[in-house]
């Protein structure tokens, strides 16, 4: 890598481009050539630096960490002369910068340990040299020159690394199965079909540190004896797809992919395959069917992919986060990794926190941390200081856990025992205003919609559950519904073909267990305790606070509100469609849900 005295980063986001960021780069380059500084100062493109609505294009100069804003081409000659030739900061171009916060990933909080997320936001994902500068591909070099495939497998096995896609199968063991399987060609597949609503950790890794995934895959391929790899990425992540394609191309140009990698005699190549919007394709057999050009429907196992996978050949599937951990394990050793975590769950796990928690976004914590620590210490507690009601872990097939479970240590086994799953690490936090029956109905709507329809328990069973839940939310629940739901949950779980069907009942089962009183209130008292279910609530205007400002009446889409100016208004319950607009608008909090 060439040595430069300073690096100038130019913000290239759509707004800055429109304001002439590329012209600015050209002008910078011309001026640096003119001043004879072109070998000392490197100009780089980066994503946004400041707030492009009020500033931009912006420059950031490192290592000085000077931020210039609102530049035009005409400013460049003076700026280059002052800063780079004379070494003086050009104060007039420094403006009070409003820092842009990464809403998804903030600086590590106390109790966080970052392995998978360590490079994200720190390096330019489109430049392989920046990854290499942070020890990238060193693990690959070590494996190819100093370790046999069997030693590599043993190292990963000793680290205790388990599948981060949710199932938690030991990664080293999977690799050994492939190594020992018979087949003409063996495949290494990366499951980047992160479909769980609320989970976006994999997207950030693919977009922010693509080479960690590629390196992990090459190491895995060497260990397992695979010659071809696929990254199956969902089409909802266009930036991730583009970044991965660029990263693969760069790795190939550096001799890290393709024939005879690093002169070791080992050959492996990679390709990106895109999904087309089917949640079930995150299931491994469905994913392989999709790569082959079929409907993404799962098939019964055995045979397991390790024996007969993609095109009937032995195939290994791991998820993005799993692969991304591998280079660090090789570099720092199995013992280091095994020292993090709790019991049989070693290392760290990323969680995507969403819902009614103060700090939403991505975190990475060691296994064994409690849910309470995650929600209150890392997450900052519940929004608007409301009361906590439940947290749903593991995506749409996970369970909803109540307050009583908050001190559970996070690991694969403890969550499983509590009736939920670790899944892909989604955490949806819900406050006291959430109706648990409505939430169960909502998740069932999702799984019912995403059921591929191949096996009957999942296809028909989820529909029956959804019908019953909808009926309960509409105030038409019957006393026997609770037993029917329990029965359906068990049947679907036992008899479905793949993880989608097996997990689909979890939200219903867990809410029935922990929030039965809410189901009973809906069914027996025709009441929604959280005041969410529309058929079971009524909007009323309270006499005192209402000033008769007419705001609600003017905004009611169905003209259900009447009343004279400066007098208390009235809502006609027969016309009201319970859209809630009046309640949102009322400046005096005079509208009450009863």
């Amino acid at each position, binding site marked *: 890598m060439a040595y430069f005295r300073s690096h100038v980063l130019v913000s290239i986001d759509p707004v800055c481009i429109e304001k002439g960021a590329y012209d600015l780069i050209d002008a910078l380059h011309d001026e640096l050539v003119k001043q004879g500084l072109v070998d000392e100062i490197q100009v780089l493109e980066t994503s946004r630096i400041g707030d492009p609505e009020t500033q931009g294009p912006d420059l950031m100069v490192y290592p000085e960490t000077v931020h210039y804003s609102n530049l035009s081409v005409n400013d460049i000659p003076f700026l280059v002369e002052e800063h780079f030739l004379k070494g003086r900061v050009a104060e007039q171009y420094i403006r009070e910068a409003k820092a842009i916060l990464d809403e998804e990933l903030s600086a590590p909080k106390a109790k966080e340990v970052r392995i998978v997320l360590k490079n994200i936001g720190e390096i330019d994902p489109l430049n392989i040299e920046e990854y290499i500068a942070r020890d990238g591909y060193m693990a690959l070099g070590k494996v190819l020159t100093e370790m046999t495939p069997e030693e590599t497998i043993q190292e990963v096995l000793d680290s205790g690394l388990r599948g981060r896609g949710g199932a938690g199968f030991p990664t080293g063991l999977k690799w050994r199965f492939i190594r020992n399987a018979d087949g003409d060609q063996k495949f290494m597949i990366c499951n980047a079909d992160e479909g769980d*609503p*609320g989970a976006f950790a994999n*997207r950030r890794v693919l977009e922010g540190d693509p080479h960690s995934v590629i390196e992990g895959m090459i190491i895995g391929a060497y260990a397992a004896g695979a010659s071809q790899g696929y990254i199956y990425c969902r089409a909802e992540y266009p930036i991730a797809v583009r970044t991965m394609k660029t990263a693969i191309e760069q790795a190939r140009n550096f001799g890290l992919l393709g024939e005879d990698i690093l002169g070791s005699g080992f050959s492996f190549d990679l390709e990106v395959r895109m999904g*087309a919007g089917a949640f079930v394709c995150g299931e491994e057999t469905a994913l392989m069917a999709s790569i*082959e*050009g079929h409907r993404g429907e799962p098939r019964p196992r055995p045979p397991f992919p390790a024996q007969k996978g993609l095109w009937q050949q032995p195939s290994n599937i791991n998820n993005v986060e799993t692969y991304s951990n591998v280079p660090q394990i090789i570099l720092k050793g199995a013992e280091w990794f095994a020292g993090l975590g709790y019991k049989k769950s070693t290392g760290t796990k990323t969680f995507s926190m969403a*819902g*009614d928690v103060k700090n939403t976004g991505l975190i990475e914590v060691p296994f064994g941390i409690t849910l309470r620590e995650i929600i209150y210490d890392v997450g900052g507690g519940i929004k608007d200081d409301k009361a906590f009601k439940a947290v749903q872990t593991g995506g749409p097939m996970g369970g909803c856990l109540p307050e009583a479970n908050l001190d559970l240590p996070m690991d694969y086994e403890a969550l499983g025992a509590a009736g939920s799953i670790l899944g892909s690490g989604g955490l949806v936090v*819900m406050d006291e205003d959430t109706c648990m029956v409505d939430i169960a109905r909502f998740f069932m709507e999702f799984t019912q919609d995403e059921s591929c329809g191949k096996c009957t328990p999942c296809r028909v069973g989820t529909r029956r559950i959804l019908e019953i839940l909808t009926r309960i939310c509409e105030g038409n629940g019957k006393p026997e519904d609770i037993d029917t739901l329990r029965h359906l949950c068990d049947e679907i779980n036992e008899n479905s073909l793949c993880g989608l069907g097996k997990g689909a009942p979890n939200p219903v089962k867990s809410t029935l267990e922990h929030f039965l009183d809410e189901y009973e209130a809906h069914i027996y008292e025709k009441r929604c305790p959280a005041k969410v279910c529309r058929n079971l609530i009524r909007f009323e205007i309270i006499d005192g606070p209402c000033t008769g400002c007419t705001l609600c009446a003017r905004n009611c889409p169905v003209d259900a509100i009447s009343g004279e100016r400066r007098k208390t208004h009235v809502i006609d319950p027969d016309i009201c469609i319970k859209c809630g607009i009046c309640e949102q608008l009322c400046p005096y909090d005079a509208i009450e849900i009863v």
Partner: protein
Amino acid sequence: MSKEVKQGQDVQKLVRTLVEDLGHEKAELIPILQEINDELGYISDDAITELSQLMNIPTSHIYSVATFYRMLSTEPRGRHVLQFCESAPCHVAGGRLVWQKLQRVLGLENGETSPDDKWTLLTTSCLGVCGVGPVMIIDNDLYGNVTPEQVPDILSNYK
């Protein structure tokens, strides 16, 4: 996704170029269908017939694949496709009110296209930008932190 309507020979030419570029193997079927969907806005019967002949794959298989994936459509769509994220994080962040407003303003239910072919209203699976929910995507433009009040303004940007 405002595309000119392509028919007959244009469709044939498009399909032929794609098969030449991407290859005849079955594994290329989904990438080719995605390209067709992007170009035409949907996968027409003409395109399926042509593809079947060129790739030597039964039309029934192509149709079964084209109808399986949510991002592929076998029905023509409007000039603008609005996809609203219906996932839990957006739902608990106030997505329901936005969705109701969208349906009311457009006069469409999920999956419907307006009679003037301007809008198609769809729900989408999670777009993974849950930090800024509720989220919707119009054609290729992403909108985060959407409130019901913003809906008319956002829609008015599309002609």
